[in-house]
C-alpha cells in the first residue's frame, strides 16, 4: 500500500498542486517521507486515486464531449476538464463536484439517476458509466477531488530508482511494478532464442548458422553485449530502422490518387538509412527533415532530408483545383508532424476545436502556417517524376550512381497569409480569424524572443522548439515508439495519441526515464544525447528484454496482455522480416545498400486491372537477377496497389502517417508463405544448399531447422520431419514429372547434379519449416 502511494506521489503529485507540489517533489527527491502530507486514515482504507491515471480516462470518454475543452459543444456552461469548472456553479446553479462531499456533488446524483431528463451521460449519447467507474468517481470525490494537468503536457522528469535494485534502471522499474502485483519476472531465454530475437530487433534479419554458433560457443561473460555491439555496427541496422520511419513518413514510389504516377524520392530513403547507421542524433534527424532547407548556407545534402515533408500523396487528376489540394498537402504535413513528433491526433482540429484535448482549430492552422508557404504549384495533368521545389541529387549510398529528382522544401519569399478554414473547407476562409505561426498553445509559447528563437518564426524555429526540452512530447513519443517496436505494445499503448484520450502509461516512471536519458544522454556526462543506438543498446541488454517468452499460468491470469512484462512477448515477424528471412536462409539475400526501388515477383495483372489509363505505373515489369532478392524495404511501393506480400502481412498502405502496425493472422497470409513464387523459390534454394552442405539427413534437418527457427529440432520434431521427408521422396521418385514441375518455381537455377525427386521433397520440407509458427514469430 505504502509503495503504491509513493508511486502515485512520484508521478502525480507535482502536477497536483503546482508550487506546493514542486516542494513535495523536491522533498521526495531528497528522500524525505512525503506521505505524511496525505491523510493516512484515507490511505489505509482505499488506494489514493490519481486524476490522470484513474479519473481523466473516465471523464474524457464519457463527459468531455459536452463538458470539456470545446467551448462550442459545451452544455450548461459546465466543463469538467479543469477544477475551476467542476467546482464552480454550472448553468443550472448546481455544483458538479464538491471535494469531499459526495452527496453534495451534482455529478454523483446525475450519473446515478434513472430519470432520462437528468441522467448523465444522457441516453442519446449511448454512453454509460459502469458500476466500477461510478465507484471510482465516488472515491475520488471523497478523497478531495484533486485535479492534475494532463501528464503528457508536463515535462518528463527523471524518476528516482527504487532502492536496492540491481541491474539496469529499466529492470528496476519493471520489477518494482511486477512486485506490486506479487509477480516475478521470467528467467532468461536460451541463447539461440535470444540471438534470433536481438538480431531481428536490431537488423530485421535472422542470425546465420555461423553467427549462432559463434555466440553459443562464446564463454565470455559479455558474450551477449558483444553480439549487440556487432549488430548495432552492422549497416543492416539502418535498413531495419528505416522501415518504420518510411511508415511514419508515408513514403511511396508513386504519387497515389488517380494517376498514381511514378516519383523518384528514393535518395531520401537512403538518407534515412545512413542517418540511422551513422547514429545521427535524433534531434538533428528531426530538425533536418523539417527544416534542412532553412539551415544557413544549406547544401543540397542539407535540403534532401526535407523530402520528408513532401512524401504525401499528390494528385494530378484533371479538373482538380490548386487551392484545394495545396491546402490538403499542407494539412497532411501538419497531421504527420503532429502524429510522428507530438503523438497527437490533430486532424479533427481542421474542422473544429478538439473535443477532448486542449487543442483548438487556431492551433491547427497556426501549425499549418509553417508548412503552406513553399514554392510548390498544383500538378494537374503533369507527368513529371517530381514537382517543384525539387533538387537533383545522388544517393549518399551510391555517390557515383544516377541522380534522381527529389521533391523537397523551399520557403516562398513571403509567408502565405493563413486563416482558419470553416469546417476545414479550403474555400471557406474565415477572414475574421487570421493566424500566425506558433506551436499549439497548450505545449508552450512560440520561440520568438526566446533564446532558441533568434531567427524568423519559420519551420526551423518550429523544429528547434520541437527538439528543445520545452517540448514535453518529442522524447516521450519517440522512445515509446521504439519501445513498441521491440515489445509489441508501447509503454503508452496509444502511440499515436498522448492526448487525454490516450492511454495512461503502464510504467510512467520508465517512460520518463527513457525519455530523459534519450534526450539528455547518460547521467555521467558520457554524451550520447539523442542517440538512437544508445537507446536500443540500453533496452536490449536489460534483463527485461532477455526474458523467456514462454507463457506462465500466473501471468496469463493476472496480466493476460503482458503489459507488466513478466515475460518477453512473442510477436509475429513483420512483412519485411518474413520475406527477408526467407531470402537469408535460402542464401539469396542481396546485401547491396540503397538505390532505386526494385520489382520482385508479384502475380500478373495486379497493377493493370486497377490502374488509370493515363498512369505511367499501369504496367508491372518484373525485375531480373539481383533485383528479385533485395531487402523488402527496396521493393517498389505503388500506393494504389502496394506490394501484395507486404500488404497481406499488415504493412500500412503508406497513404498517411502510420506509427503502428497491426498484427493479424489470416488464411491469406498462410497462402502467401505457402504458395507465393518468391517463397517457393527460397524453399527450393534452401533445400539445395542444405543438400550440398552435408550428407546425413539428420544433420541436414538440423541445419535447415536452425536456419529458420534458431533452435535445434528435438527428437520428436526430427521424427516427424524424417517421416514426412521419406514419404515425399517416395512420392516424387514415383512421379519425376511432378518433381520437375515443382522445381520450375522461380528463375534462380539450382545445381544440376542434385537428384530432382529428392530436391523436390526437401523443397516441400523447407517450405513447411518456413511456415512453422516458430519461423514466423520472434520468441
Amino acid at each position, binding site marked *: 500500500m505504502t509503495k503504491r502511494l509513493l508511486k502515485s506521489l512520484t508521478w502525480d503529485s507535482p502536477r497536483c498542486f503546482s508550487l506546493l507540489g514542486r516542494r513535495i517533489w523536491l522533498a521526495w527527491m531528497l528522500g524525505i517521507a512525503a506521505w505524511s502530507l496525505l491523510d493516512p486514515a484515507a490511505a489505509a482504507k482505499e488506494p489514493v486515486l490519481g486524476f490522470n491515471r484513474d479519473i481523466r480516462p473516465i471523464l474524457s470518454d464519457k463527459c468531455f464531449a459536452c463538458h470539456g475543452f470545446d467551448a462550442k459543444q459545451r452544455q450548461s456552461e459546465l466543463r469538467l476538464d479543469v477544477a475551476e469548472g467542476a467546482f464552480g456553479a454550472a448553468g443550472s446553479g448546481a455544483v458538479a463536484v464538491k471535494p469531499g462531499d459526495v452527496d453534495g456533488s451534482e455529478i454523483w446524483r446525475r450519473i446515478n439517476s434513472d430519470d432520462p431528463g437528468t441522467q448523465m451521460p444522457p441516453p442519446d449519447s*449511448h454512453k454509460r458509466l459502469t458500476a466500477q467507474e461510478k465507484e471510482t468517481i465516488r472515491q475520488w470525490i471523497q478523497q478531495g477531488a484533486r485535479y492534475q494537468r494532463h501528464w503528457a503536457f508536463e515535462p518528463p522528469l527523471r524518476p528516482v530508482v527504487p532502492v536496492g535494485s540491481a541491474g539496469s534502471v529499466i529492470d528496476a522499474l519493471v520489477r518494482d511494478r511486477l512486485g506490486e502485483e506479487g509477480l516475478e519476472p521470467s528467467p532468461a531465454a536460451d541463447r539461440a532464442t535470444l540471438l534470433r530475437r536481438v538480431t531481428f530487433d536490431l537488423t530485421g534479419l535472422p542470425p546465420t548458422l555461423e553467427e549462432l554458433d559463434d555466440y553459443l560457443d562464446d564463454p565470455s561473460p559479455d558474450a551477449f553485449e558483444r553480439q549487440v555491439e556487432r549488430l548495432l555496427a552492422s549497416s543492416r541496422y539502418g535498413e531495419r530502422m528505416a522501415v518504420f520511419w518510411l511508415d511514419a513518413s508515408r513514403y511511396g514510389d508513386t504519387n497515389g490518387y*488517380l*494517376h498514381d504516377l511514378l516519383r523518384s524520392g528514393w535518395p531520401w530513403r537512403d538518407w534515412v538509412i545512413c542517418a540511422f547507421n551513422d547514429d545521427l542524433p535524433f534531434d538533428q534527424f528531426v530538425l533536418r527533415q523539417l527544416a534542412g532547407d532553412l539551415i544557413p548556407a544549406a547544401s543540397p545534402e542539407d535540403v534532401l532530408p526535407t523530402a520528408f515533408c513532401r512524401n504525401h500523396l499528390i*494528385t494530378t*487528376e*484533371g*479538373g*482538380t483545383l490548386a487551392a484545394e489540394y495545396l491546402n490538403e498537402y499542407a494539412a497532411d504535413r501538419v497531421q504527420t508532424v503532429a502524429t510522428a513528433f507530438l503523438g497527437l*491526433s490533430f486532424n479533427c482540429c481542421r474542422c473544429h476545436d478538439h473535443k477532448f*484535448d486542449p487543442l483548438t482549430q487556431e492551433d491547427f492552422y497556426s501549425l499549418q502556417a509553417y508548412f503552406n508557404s513553399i514554392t510548390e504549384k498544383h500538378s494537374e495533368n503533369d507527368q513529371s517524376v517530381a514537382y517543384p521545389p525539387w533538387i537533383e541529387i545522388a544517393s549518399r549510398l551510391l555517390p557515383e550512381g544516377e541522380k534522381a529528382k527529389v521533391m523537397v522544401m523551399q520557403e516562398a519569399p513571403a509567408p502565405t497569409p493563413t486563416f482558419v478554414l470553416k469546417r476545414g473547407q479550403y474555400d471557406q476562409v474565415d477572414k475574421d480569424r487570421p493566424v500566425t505561426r506558433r506551436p499549439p498553445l497548450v505545449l508552450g509559447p512560440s520561440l520568438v524572443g526566446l533564446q532558441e528563437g533568434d531567427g524568423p518564426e519559420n519551420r526551423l524555429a518550429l523544429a528547434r522548439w520541437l527538439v528543445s526540452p520545452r517540448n514535453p512530447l518529442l522524447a516521450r513519443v519517440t522512445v515509446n515508439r521504439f519501445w513498441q517496436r521491440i515489445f509489441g505494445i508501447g509503454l503508452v499503448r*496509444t502511440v499515436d*495519441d498522448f492526448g487525454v*484520450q*490516450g492511454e495512461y502509461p503502464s510504467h510512467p516512471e520508465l517512460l520518463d526515464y527513457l525519455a530523459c536519458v534519450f534526450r539528455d544522454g547518460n547521467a555521467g556526462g558520457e554524451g550520447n544525447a539523442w542517440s538512437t543506438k544508445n537507446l536500443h543498446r540500453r533496452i536490449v541488454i536489460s534483463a527485461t528484454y532477455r526474458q523467456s*517468452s514462454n*507463457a*506462465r*499460468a500466473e501471468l*496469463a*491470469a493476472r496480466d493476460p496482455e503482458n503489459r507488466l512484462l513478466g515475460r518477453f512477448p*512473442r510477436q509475429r515477424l513483420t512483412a519485411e522480416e518474413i520475406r527477408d528471412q526467407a531470402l537469408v536462409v535460402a542464401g539469396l539475400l542481396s546485401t547491396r545498400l540503397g538505390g532505386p526501388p526494385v520489382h520482385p515477383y508479384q*502475380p*500478373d*495483372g495486379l497493377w493493370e*486491372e*486497377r*490502374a488509370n489509363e493515363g498512369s505511367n505505373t499501369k504496367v508491372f515489369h518484373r525485375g531480373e537477377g539481383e533485383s528479385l532478392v533485395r531487402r523488402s524495404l527496396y521493393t517498389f511501393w505503388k500506393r494504389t*496497389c502496394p506490394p501484395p506480400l507486404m500488404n497481406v502481412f499488415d504493412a500500412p*498502405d503508406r*497513404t*498517411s502517417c502510420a506509427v503502428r502496425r*497491426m498484427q*493479424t493472422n*489470416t*488464411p*491469406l*497470409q498462410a*497462402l*502467401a508463405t*505457402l*504458395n507465393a513464387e518468391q517463397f*517457393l523459390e527460397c524453399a527450393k534454394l534452401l533445400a539445395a544448399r542444405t543438400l550440398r552442405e552435408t550428407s546425413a539427413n539428420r544433420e541436414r534437418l538440423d541445419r535447415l531447422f536452425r536456419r529458420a527457427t534458431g533452435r535445434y529440432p528435438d527428437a520428436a*520434431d526430427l521424427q*516427424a*520431419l524424417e517421416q*514426412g521427408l521419406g514419404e515425399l521422396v517416395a*512420392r516424387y521418385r514415383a512421379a519425376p514429372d*511432378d*518433381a520437375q514441375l*515443382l522445381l*520450375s518455381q522461380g528463375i534462380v537455377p539450382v545445381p544440376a547434379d542434385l537428384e530432382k525427386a529428392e530436391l*523436390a521433397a526437401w523443397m*516441400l*520440407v523447407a517450405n*513447411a519449416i518456413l*511456415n*512453422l*509458427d*516458430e519461423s514466423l514469430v520472434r*520468441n
Partner: protein
Amino acid sequence: MQPLIEYWFNLNRRQLLRSAAAGGLAFLGGTALQQLLAADQPGAASGGRPGLPGLPHFAPKARRVIYLYMEGAPSQLDTWDYKPNLAEKFDVDLPPSVRGTQRLTGMTSGQARLPIAPTMFNFTRHPNAENGLWVSDLLKRTGAMAHELCLVRSMTTEQINHGPGITFMQTGHQIPGRPAVGAWLSYGLGSESHDLPSFVVMISQGRGQMQALFSHLWGAGFLPGEHQGVQFRAASDPVLFLNDPPGMRRDDRRKVLDLIGELNRRQADRNGDSEVLARIAQYEMAYRLQASVPELTDFGSETEDTLDLYGPDVRKPGTFAYNCLLARRMAERGVRFIQLYHRGWDHHGSVPRDLPLQCEDVDQAQAALLADLRRRGLLDETLVVWGSEFGRTVYCQGNLTRMQYGRDHHPRCFSVWLAGGGIQRGISFGQTDEFSYNVAENPVNAHDLHATMLHCLGIDHQRFTHKSQGLDFRLSGVEPARVLQEILA
C-alpha cells in the same frame, strides 16, 4: 465436412483435451481456442467467426450486402432521372440561378457557355408499387425489375473528383485511410462462412475511360487487417496465392499442412501460447479456402436457364455478368459483403457513344441477379445497392449536338437504387429540380446511405463505433446522419 478435415479437427480436439488434462494448456484462453472448439460444434459448417458482442443491435432484415458500384459516375440524366421537359431546352444556357455557387471542375470552368444537353435516349415507364418508374431504354431489363427497386434520385455529395468521391462513398471520408463499409460489417457482424472471407471485392473492366481503383477502397483502415476486402480476380489464382504450385497435388498439400500442424502443436505445448493454435486454425482455413473456391467458381452446377438469364458474358471470367453470378453464389455461401466494381463510366467526351456500351455490360446481368435472388428466396435477406460517387452535369462538356454531347462531374445530385432485405419494393425517393441539377426534395448523402444500410443489417449506426487515436469513429461520420425511414420495408 470433408473426411480429412473432420479427421484433423477431431485430432486437434483430442490433442487439446489431452494437453489440457495434462495441465500444459490449462490456462489457455483467448479466441483461438474458442474458435477451434467452435468448429466442432453442431452447425459449425455454416458458422464462421463471431462479430462484436451486442451486435446486431436489433433484428436484422438483411444478412448480407451485394454492392454494385459503377465506377466513374454514370449520367443520371440518361439513365434514372427522367426529365422530359428538358428536350425543349436543347442548347439553352443553364440559368445561373440554378447553378448558384456550385464550383465547376477545371474541365468545364473554362467553357464560355454551359448549354443544356437533353438526353438523346428514350425512356419507358415500368410498373412498380407507385405509378410506374421511368427508366432509360439503355437499362430496359433493369427497368423491368422496377417492382423490386427503391430508386433514390436525390443522392448528393461534396466531392467533385473521382479519387475523393469514391473514397467518400466507400469509407465515409474523402481522405484515404478509413475502413470500407464492407470492413465495418465484417468487423461488426463477423463471418457466416466457414471457408470464405467475409468481405469480397470483384472488379470488371468497362469500355469507357477507366479511373483508378485503390486498395484503400476495400481497406480495413484502423480496424484489424483481417477485415479488409479480399479481391477475387479473373485469374488462374482467383485469390492471391490460392493455388498450390504445379507438381503439388492436393494430398501433398495435406501432408505438408499435417507436418506444419504437428510441429506447431508441439510448439504450443512448449510455450503455452494460444496464438500458435490460432495460426494452426488459419492454415486450416487456407486449406478449406483452396477447396471451396474452385467449387465456388465452377458454374457447372448452374442450369442453362440460369446462365442464359445472366447473358452470354456470364461464361467469361472477369466480366460484370460473371461477377454477378459469382456474387449470388457467394451470397448462398455466407459471404457478408460482396463488392462489385464495374469500371468505365466517366463520360466526359461522348455520352451517346460510350454510355450504351457500359449499360450493355451491366443491364441484363444486374436484372438477372435480382430475379435470381428473388426466385431462390434470397432477395429478402440480401440488400442490393447500386451506385456511384457522383452524377454528371446537365450542361454539355465540349461540343453539343442532338446526337453528341459530353457531361462533366456533378456532385449535387445523382441516382442510386437499393433492393431486397429491409427496403420497400417498387418505390422511389427524393426529387431533383427540373434540370436534374439540385436536389429538390429529401437530400441523401453517403452517411445517410451508410446509416440505412447498417440499419437493414440490424445495426444502429450511432452506436457502432471504433476507437482510434482517442476518437470514437463511426462509419456514418460526425455530422448527423439519418436512417431513411421512409424507404424501409
